[in-house]
Structures are given as structure tokens and as C-alpha cells.
């Protein structure tokens, strides 16, 4: 039954506390577009995406209007392109990226994710070619996102891929140095990547997923923060309860929007990703939630504990609100996309080491972190390896999306603008990890991967 308080609460959440649906993402399988002729394959890719997703943006806009809740992004995720590239040896996979960009332009979506390869145990046909083409693909397209899975709890960490990805991240930054190094901001290196993630830049459509489905990613850090602000003296278990109740309400929005969009589009409903995804806007920060809990600044001692509680409570509250929970589900901590994180990093309170600790308890990993331009490829690889180890051992998804700011040094700012925000160049250790990285091979899977 409707009551005045509930109506006003919902409107306040949307109006003042930045509640929105962060994304509706259509996952499309491209397995039936595989062809030995790359031009024919690209044409099939374009046609399939446009056929499936042509109504995605108008339907999203219609739902936005009907329900009065903003849907910020309309996106598409596709089968990892390396699988299509495998059938066209000797061809430049960037053709696929261009076909995806054409499809993105026709459909009017914000991003297409899936210029990806899954190499956690080793490289198969097409993988190396695709990975090597990532810097060019991200350079010549605007709305294409790329990801590479280099490790998993089951298979260990492919250190050859880790080494290669350090070089690729660096090269991507160099190729796009004239555009604020935007290339690596569209590239994620995963351990334990999920196949139904609606969030960019790491979205791709896994091979175990249906032909076409619709995922929803919710948001709402501002709502959680202002809910907590009403209870300045509550104990932590009371705070956990408040977070759970708020997450429930946020997730119900996602469930409603997803169910409606999938019905309108005639596509099965995939999952709701229960993530607290911040934006650089005022009042939309995960760091500010942690500060509301009682930390003077995000990154200080206690941050990991506060984040662990937040992450867990978000899941507990959200899981009951949706029939299908999946994706990454948890609190995101992208530095450049979160006003509180930016402040904490500028103040020197939030360090790379603390962020690494935080990734052991949050939903993903080292995200949107700006590194000095002269950081070596081996150091980037070592950062990836550290992060992958956390994911592998803790059976969770971890990821690295770092941006070497070409020509910039510690303390300077890199400005992306828009949802990607801006970030200070954060210091890295000056001692070399090159010998460790250059050994290559594979870090074996941990003991607890043997569960059968």
C-alpha cells in the first residue's frame, strides 16, 4: 500500500541522493558469427548486435520516463572477441573492434564490452593476436572496452599473460597520451572474471550464457551514506542493518527495471549486479560512506574493516530483493570516479598499498588508479600479479585498471572528465620486479582449488 512517507523517500533518493540505475547491459553471444573470412565475420557481428539491440536505448529511455528513475548507461557485452579472432589467423582483430564501434554507433549505446580474451591457463588460437591488438583497438575506437582474464582460483595465474598485460597497459597509455591516456581506462585485467558482469570496462558475455539476455547494474552510494547519516551514534551492527535495508530498496529498483526491460525487449532477464558504483558527482561516493561510519578520511586505519562490513551488508540486503543476483556485486572503489577517494588520494591518506588491502574485501580490485608515466611495464605486471594473487587465494574476482599517465609525475592530476573523473598520480615503489615477472610460467592454483 502506498504511503506518503515512502513516496517522498523514493523521490528524495532519486532527486537528492543520486539514486539511479547505473546500467542496463544486453549480453549478446557472437558464437554464431564465427567465420574464417574476417570481413564476413565482422558483418555478421554488426548485424547480430544491431538486430538484437536496436531497441535497447529507446526501451531504456521509455522505462526511465515511466518509472521516473534515471538509467545512466545502456550497454552491450559480447562473447570474448578472441574466440572469433581464432577462426581468422593472420588477420588483424582490430577489424572486429571497428565493427563493434559501428554497432555501438548504430544502437546509440554508451559502451560495448567484450574485446576480450580468457587466458587464465594459457593462450589458445586468437588470444595472443587479440591481446597484442588491444592498444590499437582502444586507440581507434571510442566506445569499446577490453578485458583479459589472466588467472583464476581453479587454474592459477598465467604469468606469461601477466607480463604481456603490463606491456599492453603501458602501450595503450602511450598510444592515447594525447587524449589523457584514455586507452587503459577502457582495459581491465581480471582474475576470476565473471561471465555476466554488466559493468564496464570489464563486461563480456560468457560462453555459458544464453544467446541474448539483459543484466542490470544498480548504484546508490549516496542513498547509503545519507541513511547512515541519520544514525550518528548507532553501533556497527545497527549500521549493518541500515545498509541492508537500503541495499534492499536499491536492488528492488534494479529488479523492477530489469524485469520490465527484458519483457519489453523479449529477452530473458539475466542478473542484477548489486554494486555500489560511485561517480565523481557530489554525494555519490563510496569513500564518503566509509567516512560516515566514523573514519576521518578514507584510507586511514580501519578503512578495510569498514569496507568489509559495507560490502557484506550490501550483498545481504540486495540478495533478497532480486530473483537473480550475479555479476560483481559489492562495493566498487574506483579512485578517479569517486570524489571521496580522489580527495583521500590527493591528501596522501589513500595509498596504493591500502587500496590493495581494500580489494581483498570489496567487490573487485585496483580500479582507475593513475600511475606515474614512467612506471615500467614490469612494475605494472607486478601490480597485476599481486592483485591476481589476492583474487586467486580468496576465491573472488579481482581486477586491475591502472592508467600510466604519460609525461606526468607523482602529485600531478590526470583529468578524464565525465563518469571517469580525475585522479592524482599515485606513487609506486622504485625497486624493480622485473626478474620475477620475466621468469614467466604459471603460478599454480592454491590447494583449496581442489574441492571435488
Amino acid at each position, binding site marked *: *500500500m*502506498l504511503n*506518503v512517507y*515512502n*513516496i*517522498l*523517500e*523514493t*523521490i528524495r533518493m532519486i*532527486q537528492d541522493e543520486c539514486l539511479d540505475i547505473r546500467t542496463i547491459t544486453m549480453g549478446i553471444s557472437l558464437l554464431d558469427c564465427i567465420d574464417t573470412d574476417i570481413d564476413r565475420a565482422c558483418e555478421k557481428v554488426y548485424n547480430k548486435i544491431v538486430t538484437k539491440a536496436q531497441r535497447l536505448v529507446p526501451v531504456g529511455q*521509455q522505462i526511465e*520516463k*515511466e*518509472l*521516473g*528513475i534515471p538509467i545512466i548507461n545502456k550497454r552491450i557485452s559480447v562473447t570474448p572477441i578472441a574466440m572469433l579472432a581464432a577462426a581468422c589467423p593472420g588477420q588483424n582483430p582490430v577489424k572486429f573492434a571497428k565493427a563493434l564501434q559501428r554497432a555501438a554507433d548504430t544502437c546509440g549505446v554508451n559502451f560495448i564490452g567484450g574485446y576480450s580474451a580468457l587466458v587464465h591457463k594459457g593462450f589458445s588460437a586468437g588470444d595472443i593476436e587479440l591481446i597484442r591488438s588491444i592498444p590499437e583497438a582502444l586507440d581507434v575506437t571510442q566506445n569499446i572496452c577490453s578485458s583479459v582474464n589472466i588467472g583464476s582460483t581453479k587454474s592459477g595465474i598465467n604469468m606469461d599473460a601477466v607480463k604481456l598485460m603490463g606491456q599492453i597497459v603501458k602501450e595503450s597509455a602511450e598510444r592515447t597520451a594525447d587524449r589523457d591516456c584514455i586507452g587503459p581506462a577502457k582495459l581491465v585485467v581480471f582474475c576470476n572474471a565473471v561471465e555476466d558482469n554488466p559493468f564496464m570496462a570489464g563486461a563480456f558475455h560468457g560462453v555459458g550464457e544464453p544467446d541474448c539476455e539483459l543484466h542490470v547494474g544498480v548504484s546508490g552510494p549516496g542513498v547509503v551514506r545519507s541513511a547512515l547519516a541519520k544514525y550518528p551514534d548507532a553501533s556497527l551492527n545497527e549500521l549493518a542493518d541500515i545498509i541492508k535495508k537500503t541495499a534492499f*530498496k536499491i536492488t*528492488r*529498483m534494479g*529488479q*523492477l527495471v530489469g524485469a*520490465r526491460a527484458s519483457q519489453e525487449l523479449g529477452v530473458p532477464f539475466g542478473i542484477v549486479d548489486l554494486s555500489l558504483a560511485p561517480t565523481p558527482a557530489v554525494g555519490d561516493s563510496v569513500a564518503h560512506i566509509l567516512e560516515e561510519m566514523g573514519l576521518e578520511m578514507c584510507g586511514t586505519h580501519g578503512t578495510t574493516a569498514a569496507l568489509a562490513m559495507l560490502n557484506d551488508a550490501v550483498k545481504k540486503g540486495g540478495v*533478497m530483493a532480486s530473483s537473480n543476483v550475479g555479476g560483481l556485486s559489492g562495493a566498487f572503489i574506483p579512485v578517479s570516479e569517486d570524489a571521496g577517494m580522489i580527495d583521500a588520494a590527493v591528501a596522501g591518506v589513500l595509498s596504493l598499498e591500502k587500496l590493495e588491502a581494500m580489494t581483498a574485501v570489496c567487490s573487485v580490485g585496483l580500479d582507475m588508479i593513475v600511475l606515474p608515466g614512467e612506471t615500467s611495464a614490469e612494475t605494472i605486471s607486478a601490480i597485476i600479479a599481486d592483485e591476481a594473487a589476492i583474487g586467486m587465494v580468496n576465491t573472488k574476482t579481482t581486477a586491475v585498471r591502472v592508467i600510466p599517465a604519460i609525461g606526468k609525475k607523482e602529485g600531478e592530476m590526470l583529468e578524464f572528465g565525465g563518469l571517469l573523473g580525475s585522479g592524482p598520480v599515485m606513487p609506486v615503489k622504485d625497486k624493480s620486479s622485473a626478474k620475477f615477472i620475466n621468469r614467466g610460467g604459471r603460478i599454480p592454483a592454491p590447494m583449496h582449488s581442489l574441492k571435488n
Partner: protein
Amino acid sequence: MRAVVTVIGKDTVGILHKVSGICAEYNANVMEVTQSVLQDMFAMIMLVDISAISRDFSEMVDRMTSLGQELGLSIHTMHEDIFNSMHSI
């Protein structure tokens, strides 16, 4: 199918008239109205039946929003599902 129209802002002459005028124009039956004026702040919540509206609901949403801008009020027109799903299990 019902929609909730909320109007919040500075009180002026004829707000209720203008909002319900748009409802009538779209054949949306007003089912319930709760309204209060505190000092000079006007707050109204209106529940309207939109199952037999004569034109597109999103067009009606746009009309309400532009009326709000005209009068300097915040007018939200939202399908009731959003409130029901958020606040009930």
C-alpha cells in the same frame, strides 16, 4: 495501472487546477489527493488511474514536468510500480 504525481514548491494560485487539468486532458482519473500547505510551501501527492489514458504516458510525464518548470515547482510523475517494489516485499 496507476501513477503518482507529486508536486512540491512555493504555493501559488491554481496549482491543483492546472495539474488536474492535465490529468483530465489525458483521461487520467484522479483517485486520491493528499495536500498540505505549510507556511507558503505547497506539497501534494495525487494518485491517478492511467489504465485508460488517451495518449502515451511518457507524453503526460513530459507535460507535467514542463508545467513544473513553468510554475517553478518540482513535479514528478511516476508509475506506482516503483514505489510498490521499493517499499514492499
